[in-house]
């Protein structure tokens, strides 16, 4: 009965077809597994390098002696940082003493979509540097917040809430101290606000952020 069943030309064709599809899938999987294996280390290395190069822009090397990528604090979703998801802060130390913290913040009120920011704050509360990680602002208009299209973001260097009163943390058009480009005010307005809020978060949580002495990731109690 079963022999007859497999001799049926339709069944035979179906089985052959299925087997050949399986063979292609098998060869494809083998190939992918092999390439994944040999590229995994270089990809990890270049991602790490890219991350460190970004950190070096806002917190020059030599300002810390620890492994920034391994010394992290998990920060739960926080309205002040604009993070809807938990984020990771990298802690810079010298002789196991915290000297700076790198925070991720998101501005939701940009001209189009979220603006992701990376902000490095020194222990005294001054900003070491800010960079835009990702944005969807209009090319050629609002994208000057990106270091690739202008130096505007460097205005934040060495700023702090102690140096500049909160009312001054606005673009010049709104009566603040921050320059902007005519025709694109919404974008810098959102960035200034997000940086201010991140700085305030840093001041409010300084004690907790700095109390972490180990080089292991720890949870920030909220």
């Amino acid at each position: 009965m079963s022999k007859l069943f497999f001799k049926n030309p339709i069944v035979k064709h179906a089985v052959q077809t299925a087997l050949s599809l399986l063979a292609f899938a098998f060869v494809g999987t083998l190939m992918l597994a092999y390439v994944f294996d040999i590229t995994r280390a270089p990809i990890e290395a270049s991602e790490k390098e890219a991350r460190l190069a970004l950190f070096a822009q806002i917190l020059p090397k030599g300002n810390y002696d620890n492994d920034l990528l391994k010394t992290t604090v998990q920060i739960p979703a926080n309205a002040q940082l604009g993070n809807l998801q938990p984020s990771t802060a990298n802690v810079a130390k010298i002789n196991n003493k915290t000297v700076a913290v790198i925070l991720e913040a998101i501005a939701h009120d940009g001209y189009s979509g979220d603006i992701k920011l990376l902000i490095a704050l020194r222990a005294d509360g001054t900003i070491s540097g800010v960079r835009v990680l990702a944005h969807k602002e209009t090319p050629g208009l609002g994208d000057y917040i990106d270091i690739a299209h202008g130096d505007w973001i460097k205005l934040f260097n060495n700023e702090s809430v102690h140096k500049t009163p909160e009312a001054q943390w606005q673009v010049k058009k709104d009566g603040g101290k921050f320059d902007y480009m005519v025709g694109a005010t919404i974008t810098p307005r959102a960035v200034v606000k997000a940086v201010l809020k991140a700085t305030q978060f840093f001041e409010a949580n300084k004690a907790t952020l700095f109390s972490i002495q180990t080089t292991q990731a720890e949870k920030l109690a909220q």
Partner: protein
Amino acid sequence: MSNIYKEIVENGLWKQNPGVVQLLGLCPTLAVTTTAVNGISLGLATALVMAASNGAVSPVRKWIASEIRVPVFILVIAALVTVIDLSINAFAHPLHKVLGIFIPLIVVNCIVLARVESFAAKNAPVPSILDGLMMGIGLTLVLALLGAMREIFGRGTLFSGLDLVFGPAAKQFILTVIPDYHGFLLAVLPPGAFLGLGILIAGRNWLELRKAAKTSAPTHPLKPALSH
């Protein structure tokens, strides 16, 4: 024999150009061509995938039953694209950051499947590889032209982002075509891609019409061109 190869090259680059004649794979054509470098990079990656997928399918074409050919083709293409995606990520990381999401999209670029289906599934490996490569280069030319047009009109530069591909030393090759240019936003935004592609198609059609008029008009003014 050499006639076949000549025809394959002509088809890929001009007669059946995927970008301006077949109009296949418009998604990356329109999305990526904000600069010349982006266009060329994605074009070359696509050409590589097309040559590889045509080359992979052609030798085994007799063992692929027609009922399952589309899943097999997609499987081959997807595997090859993933290999290229991982390789670029590992060995040209900055470029991967720029082209990032568009490389996986090569899988769904219908020009790749179209060439596998209509050429590699019926022809020997060497012509198939050449066909994939030439179609890919034909697409690359369109992407490069469109990218250059949009970049010059949109930003006033040419080859910006070259340093992302070849390292910081390549920065000196970036040309400022129009100094002190304030940018023309329309060219950079998606509508600029549609307009630019329209101009390229019109330009190609104009050249073809002129050629047809030259060859047929003097002798047989009322008869259609011989090729039809």
